[in-house]
């Protein structure tokens, strides 16, 4: 086991922040968020799960895809510049898995999303293992663990005065190549795990399509997009062209994309006014079946990382595990 002292870690992080953008859990008045930090001192070490996942640094809430400048007969198109290097430190295993899941849709499956791919190429994922699972965490139910290093470039595990370090990719090895690591005997103590039941099998999810319970859950759903926006894997977006203030004689526009969610009522509205998912129950069903049936079918992995954010944040306590547990019982 290779370890690094806390002082050296802080020095290293200060150095990283000076070179690249360093993103880490940071405490703000209402909670902990992944934020760009300038120094290791600004990192919230003893904090709970960040309110939002880290997806916003690869798939920002809104971004310009294109700028159009029209001057008389001349039209100039300007693509957005490619991304700058960034390191996400203190990433939780569930959030790292979220990024891997996004990769499968945005990068691994054509057509490649160039904006996402540009950010992804320039991003290193440096994890910090959770010691235990929070009250609403269920990463073990989706095949992860609180200290799962698989989706990271580098993984740190806290051991008090020192941290165990493990590089998992060539890029990760390059990142820690110059660190004054110390070889120590022994193994990293595994995090305490809690087995969480309730998630149905893919088959049970599939068979739940005409289950009457969806309508019942839908009655309670407020159709906000909270669950989708706090989710590490929800990736729907909307694209629109908007006018920009322009100098006299010119007309400037930008093509924007911004987060969107299948939970909102108008998401599936078609020309002519028909809405195949007008009922909130059918929208709720779509979101969950997307996670466990449609996404794995199309891209491979299930689109749920067990972070538990939707369980905590839902204003009316719609609970994925409760909904799933009832469906699984019905299937048996």
């Amino acid at each position, binding site marked *: 086991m290779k370890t690094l002292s806390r002082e050296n870690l802080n020095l290293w992080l200060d150095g990283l922040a000076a070179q690249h953008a360093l993103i880490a859990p940071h405490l703000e008045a209402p909670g902990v968020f992944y934020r760009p930090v300038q120094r290791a001192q600004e990192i919230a070490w003893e904090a709970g799960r960040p309110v939002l996942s880290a997806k916003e640094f690869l798939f920002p809430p809104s971004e310009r895809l294109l700028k159009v400048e029209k001057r008389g007969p001349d039209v100039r198109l300007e693509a957005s510049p490619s991304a700058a290097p960034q390191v996400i430190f203190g990433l939780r295993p569930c959030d790292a898995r979220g990024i891997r899941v996004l990769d499968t849709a945005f990068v691994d499956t054509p057509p490649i999303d160039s904006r996402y791919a540009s950010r992804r190429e320039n991003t290193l994922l440096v994890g*910090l293992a959770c010691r235990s699972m929070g009250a609403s965490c269920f990463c073990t139910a989706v095949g992860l663990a609180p200290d799962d290093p698989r989706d990271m470039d580098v993984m740190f595990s806290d051991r008090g005065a020192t941290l165990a370090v493990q590089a998992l990719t060539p890029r990760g090895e390059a990142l820690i190549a110059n660190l004054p690591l110390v070889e120590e005997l022994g193994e990293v103590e595994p995090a305490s795990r809690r087995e969480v039941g309730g998630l149905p099998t893919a088959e049970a999810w599939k068979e739940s399509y005409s289950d009457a319970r969806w309508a019942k859950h839908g009655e309670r759903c407020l159709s906000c997009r909270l669950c989708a926006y706090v989710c590490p894997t929800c990736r729907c977006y909307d694209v629109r062209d908007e006018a920009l203030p322009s100098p006299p004689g010119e007309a400037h526009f930008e093509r924007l994309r911004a987060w969107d969610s299948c939970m909102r009522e108008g998401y599936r509205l078609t020309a002519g006014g028909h809405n195949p998912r007008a009922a909130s129950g059918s929208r709720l069903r779509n979101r969950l079946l997307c996670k466990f049936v449609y996404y794995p079918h199309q891209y491979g992995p299930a689109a749920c990382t067990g972070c538990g954010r939707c369980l905590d944040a839902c204003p009316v306590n719609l609970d994925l595990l409760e909904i799933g547990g009832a469906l699984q019982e019905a299937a048996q």
Partner: protein
Amino acid sequence: MYEPKVIGFLCTWCSYTGADSAGTSRLKTPWNLRAVRVPCSGRVAPELILRAFDQGADGVLVLGCHIGECHYDSGNHRAAKRIPLLLSILEFAGMQPERLRLDWVSASEGDRYARIVSEFVDALRPLGPNTWRINGAAPRADAAIGMPLPAASGLSGGAPCP
């Protein structure tokens, strides 16, 4: 001296004609005001004014018929109730209250029109450019003002990081 950009929403029945009347009487009015002709001051939804400020207006002037003279009976009554509330929330959000004004100008009051516009622009000049319009990101730093804020609802779960 800074020359402010002012958007004026002028009701077509009274104030717009009042502006014409100021022109035909050769009264001097500041050039800072860009007039938008609207059917009634009641048509000036607060969102229009918010949009004007978002797009970089230094000030917004809404002019309608005098109370009791509205072409549509009650349009200016509505403006008279909505715009003070908009002013109140804008001020609460940190904008200088001098930047928004509602007043009444009838079709024959060219002199009153010229006086109100001059007063409004004169009050704006010392304020300088409006900082309301944001280009790019806002400052991330939490403005710590020593008051309890609601906790983010997603905060309750998750084990502490080691």
